[in-house]
C-alpha cells in the first residue's frame, strides 16, 4: 500500500459520515450518478471492502400491504374461527384456552411441529405484497430459460423487470416490514449478526483501472473470521484489516464483472456465503450453520464519493433457505414469534420463479435481493491466492 493510497483512503474515511444516506438502497439515477465524483482507483488496482449491511430491502409504501402485515399464528387461528367463537376466545378470561388451542395448531403427529417439519402441514395462504414496486435486480433478462412465470416489479427509481419474488412473499411479514415506522426484526437482527463478526463478509476487487469504466474486474466475495471494527452505535469503521477464509463453514466466491458509469456489475454465478444462527436462551440454537446460496447470483454495486459501496446482491435462493432461521428455531419460532413456517413455505413454493427442475417443471428457487453497503477495508486474500508481498492487503 503506497503512501498516496493510504492518504486517499484517509480522505475517504473523513468523508464517510456524509455518505450512505444519499444512495442508501438502489442504484442512482443518471442525474444522481453524474453528481457522484469518484476518486481515482488505487495504483495497483486492488480495493477492499467489508460488508456493513446486508438486508432484504423493503419499500415502505401504503399500497404494499393494504390488509396489514401477515397474521401471526394466534391471530390466524382467531381469524379462522366463526365470529361468535372468535369473540368468546378473545375474552381475557378465555386467554388460557385460546393459547392452548392456537398453540396446538403448531404441532403435528409424532412430535412434529410446524417449523421443523413445515411440509407436513397444510395452511391457508398468506398475505403477499400487492404493489408493483420493489427493490432488486433484473435476474432473468438475457436468455434465462430455467425460470417460471412471474410478475415483475418496478424499482422506486423506475427500473422495470425487477425480480424479487421473495419480497412478494415475505414483504408483508412483520419480521420484514416492521411496524409504526420501525424497521422489522430482519433488519435489526441482520445488523447485529454482521456487527458481531459471526458472518463477516468482505469484497476484494482486483484489476480496477477506473471507478467509472472498466471492462474487466475480478471480484472476490468471501467470508472472514475477523470481526469488524464498529463504533458505539454499531456503525462499521473504515480502515480495518481482514483476512479471507475459505475453510468451512466460510466461503470464497470468485466473480467477474465490469464497471459502467461508476456501477460495478458481476456476471451471474453461484454465490455461497456462511450464516451462523442463534439468539441464545434455553433452546439455544447458537452455532447452527447454514449458507447464503444464491443461484445465478450477481452484484450491482455503486462506488460512492465517500469511498463506500452501496447496491444490491441478487439471485435465486432455494425456497427453503428463506425460512432457514425459523426452521432452525423449531417450534419456538411458532410459539414465541408466531411464525407459521408451513404457510411461508407453501407461499414461497407458489411464487418460486427460478432454477426450474427439468423433471417436475417446477421452479425450486425464488428470486431474491439483498441491499448491501460496504465500507473501505484492507482485505487480505487467502495465502494460496495471494498476490506478492505488499499487494495482499488492499482496499
Amino acid at each position, binding site marked *: 500500500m*503506497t503512501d498516496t493510497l493510504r492518504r486517499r483512503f484517509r480522505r475517504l474515511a473523513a468523508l464517510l459520515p456524509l455518505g450512505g444516506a444519499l444512495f442508501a438502497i438502489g442504484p442512482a439515477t443518471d442525474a444522481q450518478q453524474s453528481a457522484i465524483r469518484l476518486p481515482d482507483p488505487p495504483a495497483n488496482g486492488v480495493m477492499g471492502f467489508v460488508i456493513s449491511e446486508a438486508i432484504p430491502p423493503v419499500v415502505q409504501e401504503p399500497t404494499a400491504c393494504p390488509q396489514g402485515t401477515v397474521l401471526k399464528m394466534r391471530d390466524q387461528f382467531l381469524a379462522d374461527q366463526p365470529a361468535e367463537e372468535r369473540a368468546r376466545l378473545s375474552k381475557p378470561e378465555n386467554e388460557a384456552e385460546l393459547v392452548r388451542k392456537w398453540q396446538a395448531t403448531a404441532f403435528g403427529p409424532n412430535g412434529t411441529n410446524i417449523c421443523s417439519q413445515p411440509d407436513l402441514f397444510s395452511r391457508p395462504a398468506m398475505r403477499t405484497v400487492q404493489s408493483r414496486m420493489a427493490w432488486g435486480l433484473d435476474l432473468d433478462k438475457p436468455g434465462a430459460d430455467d425460470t417460471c412465470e412471474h410478475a415483475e416489479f418496478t424499482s422506486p427509481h423506475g427500473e422495470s423487470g425487477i425480480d424479487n419474488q421473495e419480497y412478494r412473499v415475505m414483504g408483508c411479514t412483520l419480521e420484514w416490514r416492521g411496524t409504526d415506522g420501525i424497521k422489522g426484526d430482519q433488519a435489526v437482527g441482520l445488523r447485529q449478526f454482521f456487527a458481531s463478526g459471526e458472518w463477516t463478509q468482505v469484497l476484494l476487487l482486483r484489476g480496477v483501472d477506473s471507478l467509472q469504466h472498466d471492462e474487466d474486474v475480478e471480484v472476490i466475495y468471501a467470508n472472514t473470521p475477523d470481526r469488524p*471494527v464498529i463504533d*458505539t452505535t454499531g456503525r462499521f469503521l473504515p*480502515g480495518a484489516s481482514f483476512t479471507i477464509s475459505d475453510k468451512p463453514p466460510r466461503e470464497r466466491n470468485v466473480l467477474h464483472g465490469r464497471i459502467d458509469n461508476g456501477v460495478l456489475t458481476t456476471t451471474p454465478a453461484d454465490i455461497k456465503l456462511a450464516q451462523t444462527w442463534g439468539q441464545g436462551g434455553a433452546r439455544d440454537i447458537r452455532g447452527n450453520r447454514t449458507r447464503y446460496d444464491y443461484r445465478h447470483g450477481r452484484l450491482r454495486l455503486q462506488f460512492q464519493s465517500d469511498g463506500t459501496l452501496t447496491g444490491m446482491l441478487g439471485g435465486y435462493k432455494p425456497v427453503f433457505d428463506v425460512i432457514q432461521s425459523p426452521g432452525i428455531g423449531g417450534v419456538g419460532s411458532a410459539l414465541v414469534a408466531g411464525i407459521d413456517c408451513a404457510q411461508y413455505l407453501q407461499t414461497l413454493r407458489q411464487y418460486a420463479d427460478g432454477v426450474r427442475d427439468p423433471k417436475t417443471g417446477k421452479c425450486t428457487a425464488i428470486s431474491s435481493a439483498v441491499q448491501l453497503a460496504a465500507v473501505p477495508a484492507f482485505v*487480505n486474500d487467502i495465502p494460496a491466492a495471494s498476490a506478492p508481498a505488499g499487494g*495482499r492487503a488492499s482496499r
Partner: protein
Amino acid sequence: MKRSAKLAAALALLALPAAMAFAPVGPAAGADTAAAPAPAQAGQIVAMRRLTEAQYRNSIADIFGPDIRVSGRFEPIVRPVHEMIASGARRASISPTGLENFDAMARVIAAQVFDAQHRALFAPCAPADAKTADDRCAAQVLAPLGRYLFRRPLTLDEQAFYVRMAGAAAGKAGSFDKGLELALSAMLVSPNFLYVIERAEPDPANPGQLRLDNGTRATRLAMMLWNSAPNEALLKAAAEGRLTDQKQLEAAAAAMVSSPRFEQGLRAFFADMLLFEKFDELAKDPVVYPYFNQDVAQALPEQTLRTITDHLLTRNGDYRQLFTTSHTFMTRALGPVYQVPVHRAKGWEPYEFGPRDDRAGLIGQAGFLSLYSHSGRSSPTLRGRAIREVLMCQPVPNPPGNVNFTAVQDVHNKAMPTARIRLTAHNTDPVCAGCHKITDPVGLSLERFDGIGAWRASENDAPIDAGGMMDGVKFEGGAGLGKALSESPDTPICVASRALEYAVGKPPEDEALVERLVGDFAGSGYAIRALFLKVATMPETWRVTAPVLDNATHVSFAAPATMAGRTGR
C-alpha cells in the same frame, strides 16, 4: 543435592551462554556451596528499594518457573515528581493492605510450588514422616529457595527461623509440605524479598569511604539490566567476591547487556522513563474517538516498546534516531487507528511509515500522542510538556490553580476552529503565556494527529498549521519535531541521566559524571547497550555517599528476648 541441581539448572537455563562465561564453574556444585548459610549479614544497609510489580513477577518466574501463577493487586510505587519510579522505590513503604495483598499472593505461590506438579523440582528430599516436621529435609528445601529469594545466602539465624516455622506448621497441619508452604510464604513477604536491600562495605581503594558489596552488586546488575533476580552465575560471582573486581564486573555486565534478556531490562527502563503507568489510566471518549477501544489501549505501550527494542537492540541503532525512525510494528487493533493494512490476523508485524506520513519515531506513535491528549481532544500543551519533561528532562512548572481554560476547551467554537487559534487566545493572559511558550510551539507541530494519534488534515474544517519551534529552531510537523529532538543535545543527556538514576535509585547530582557518561554515550554512536554497560561498570555507580556508621544496623531473626539486645543503635 538433586534439588539444588535442579534449581540451579532451572536458573542457569535463564542465563545465556555468554552470561555464563564469567562463571565457568558448574551451577550445581556452585549452588550447593553457595546455599550454605552465612553466619550473619555483614555490611551497612545504605538503601532499600521495593521491588516493582514487574521485578516481583519476573523473580517468581525465574526462580520457580513461568507456570507459577502470580495473582493479586500490587500496591503501586509512587513516582516522585520529575523522577523515576526507580527513585520512588527507595522511599516506598508497604501499607497494611499492601502487605495483606503480598501475603495472599505469597500463599498462592507457595501452594503451587509445593503442589504435586512442582514439588519434586524444589523438594527432592522426603521427610521421615510426611505428616510431621523434618528439620533436616526442610533445611535442604528452604535454604536454596531462600538464597534465590533473598538474593544472598540465608544467615544461620534466618535458616533456623524458617526451618523452625516449617516444623511448627507441619506439626499443627499434620503435613510436612504444608509446613514448607508456610515457611516459603513467610519468605515471600519478608522485607529481604520485597525490598532490594543494598549493603555497603569499606572501599579499600578509598579509605574512609564505602562501596556496594558483592551481593548488592549482583542484585543491582540483575535488576538494572534484566529487571529480575540475580541468576546462579551472578550469585556465585558475588559469593566469590568477583563483582568488586573491575575487570570481572565489566565482563559480567558485558555479558548481560549482550544477552537477549537485556531486552526485558530495557523495556522496564523505558516503561519507567516514559511514564507508562499513565497507560493504566488512559481513557478516551468513544463518541469522539470511535477507533479507540480496549484492544487499542493495550497495544499502544507494546508498540512503543517494540519500536524501542527493535531500534536500539535488534538494529543497534542510534538512540537519537528513536525520534526519527520510520520503523514500527502493527497489530490488527492498531491498523485502523493508523489506517494502514495489517496482514497477520494475530500478533505483531513490522511496519514502515512512508516519508509523507509525518510520523517520526516515538512521538509519531499513537501511544505518545494519545497519552498526552485529553479524553476528547488533542493537547499541544500536554504533548509539548511531555517532550520537554520526559524526553528532554526539562521540568515545566505546573499551571496556577485559577487558570481559565474556557478558550482551549471549547473545541467546537467555529470562531476558533484549531488548537493553535484557541491557545493563542488563551495565551493573551501573560500568566499563562510564560509556560505555554515553552510547551505549545513544540506540541503544535503534532496537531495533525488527533487525541488518539489518528491523522487529520483539518480541525473543524480549518486546515491545520503544523509549524513548530523548539529552542529557536523552526520546523514543520512531526517529522520536523523528530529531527529537532534527534539533534538536540538534551535528549541523549536525558536518557543518560535517567539510566544513571535507574541504576542508583536516585537522580544524579554530579553533573560532571553525567557529562562524562554522555561523552562515552556519544563515542559509542549513542548505542544503548554501551550506555548501560558504562552505567553498570563505572566505579561511581558503586560508590556510596552515606556516612560510615559505627555499628551495622540490622534486625535479627532471633527470639524476641534476644532481639532487643542484638539490634544495633
